[in-house]
């Protein structure tokens, strides 16, 4: 059992980045946004997408417009990266007009509070290890938080297919999510495997959540929803996962072998 625990602890503490935000978008304190097209072009809209990293022009007008040497025909949408949009005040020529924008910088939250919440959730998760049914319920909650985070991160991406992006964002979730169903079935059958599966799913979700620590210290998160909701989901994944891993293995240690 000690070897088993050691392997698990090493897996938790040393695993590389296995999951974070979809599409390679990362948390940050700055966000580039379009303020205006001057003078306005009828039917033409411009917006910063993909967490302020790409400029998207939609030509809903009747004639073509040119931006950065690219001609956008009527009804077409063009999305591209442009280094100019990273300046604090920026302009990009669009046909006879100009797209104006700025980069807003918002300080991030104090990460200590979120680390404390994560620690509290870890403690709560650990105490779920007192009963099999509680462990299974904990697994469902923590997995749901991870799924919500992955879906929210995927929906924040513009211009990619949903399924491959979600697949990329899920990482080890591809294994942890189905195992959650196994934990529930095992709990319903009162099988001793419940605690084992809960511990393994918890450990996997901690691994999945490690790269998301940045969500606690940056203000702008690539997530389709309020940033604090995403931080809570990350805290649940990390803290709850850690608690389930510790609580599940503690349950196994207390119940011992079946022979």
């Amino acid at each position, binding site marked *: *059992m000690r070897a088993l625990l050691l392997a698990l602890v090493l897996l938790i503490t040393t695993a590389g980045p296995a999951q974070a935000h979809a599409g390679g978008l990362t948390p940050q304190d700055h966000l580039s946004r379009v303020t205006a097209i001057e003078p306005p072009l009828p039917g033409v809209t411009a917006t910063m997408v993909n967490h302020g990293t790409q400029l998207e022009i939609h030509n809903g007008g009747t004639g073509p417009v040119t931006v950065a040497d690219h001609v956008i025909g009527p009804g077409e949408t063009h999305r591209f990266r442009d280094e100019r949009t990273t300046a604090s005040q920026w302009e990009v020529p669009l046909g006879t007009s100009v797209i104006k924008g700025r980069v807003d910088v918002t300080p991030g939250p104090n990460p200590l509070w979120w680390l404390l919440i994560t620690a509290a959730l870890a403690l709560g998760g650990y105490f779920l290890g007192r009963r099999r049914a509680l462990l299974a319920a904990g697994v469902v909650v923590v997995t749901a938080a991870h799924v919500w985070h992955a879906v929210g991160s995927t929906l924040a991406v513009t211009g990619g297919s949903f399924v491959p992006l979600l697949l990329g964002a899920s*990482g*080890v979730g591809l294994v*942890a999510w189905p195992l959650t169903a196994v934990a529930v079935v095992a709990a319903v059958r009162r099988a001793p495997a419940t605690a084992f599966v809960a511990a393994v799913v918890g450990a996997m979700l901690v691994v999945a959540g490690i790269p998301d620590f940045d969500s606690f210290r940056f203000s702008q998160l690539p997530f389709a929803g309020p940033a604090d909701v995403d931080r809570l989901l990350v805290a649940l994944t990390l803290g709850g996962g850690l608690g389930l891993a510790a609580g599940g293995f503690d349950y196994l240690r207390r119940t011992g072998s079946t*022979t």
Partner: protein
Amino acid sequence: MTLGSEAEVDAPAGSPTTGGRPRAGYRTDLITVLLGTWFSIGLFLDAWAHSNVPELESFFTPWHAVFYSGFAATGAWILWVLWRNYQQGLRGLDAVPIGYGPAVLALPAFAAAGVGDYLWHTFIGIEQGIDILFSPTHLVLITSMVLILTTPLRTLWSDRDVVAPSLRRFLPAGLALSFTASLVLLFAGYADATVFTSEQVIRAFTFEKGAGGSGRAVELAASVMFTNLIMILPLLLAVRRFRLPFGAATLLAFVVMLLSTAVANYENMSTAIGFIVSGVVIDVLLLKLNPSESRVKEYRIFALAASFVTWAVFFAGAIIDQGTTPSVTEMWTGAPIMAALHGVLMAVVLVPTARR
């Protein structure tokens, strides 16, 4: 079921175990190797993406997800096997089935190398060319992967009752051996002859004789010799221990071609078909020659013939597909002979004298 002092892990939970470490059963090993296959295919997909997707902007790609989830699934399964033994009253090393010890060590090593690789990319930079194959963290990752993947081979190797397994019995070990060979070849990508298309083969050995050969000719010649060793050594190793079932060599060729076609974006299909045809011929050689440590002459003939056939078919396939031969006859007629000589050399090194 027990074998000597070793208990079968696949025995029902709670069944009595004898003293000593257990040996994983067929089903356990099959699941281990299938999860390892998931793990490996994730790496193959990633290799394909690195070769064929021009703008890989993110670490969080679907193929990385397949790779890392395969690792997570394999890790969870091996922990389950240990826990099941723990439940049956086995403690410490006794809970680790024979052959599974290196995998138990390799799991955290792989995870540690993962974080090391992340730090390497952050502070030293991301490799984009041949340097990918020499990054120390990548080498630890691939080594630990090989240790995990070869687990079913160690299980079968340790079972002295198994001498001439059926293909079904050999399947977990055979898949382990085949995927390991393909991973070794993946990390020898700078000398991989399997990714050459027929047209590239013909062009590489077509040059002005007076000029002494192009860089491409040197690359193909070196690749043939290196790839030959990677393809022949697993078979020369396995026949020292087992009488291989018909299909083992074809399985090896098939799995290696899964990788090489992915890396070459499926443009080397005629080359891949040639390797699979060679696999079938090598299976016939295994059947007819029955090479083993005690049959040294047949062992050496097998090494010579298997290497020769592989590269004769390789060049014949390219010639048939392109409808022409390379202009330098010495190169395409001599390369299979050179490979055959290397094969014999390996056979002599591996089995210097007959085992009495």
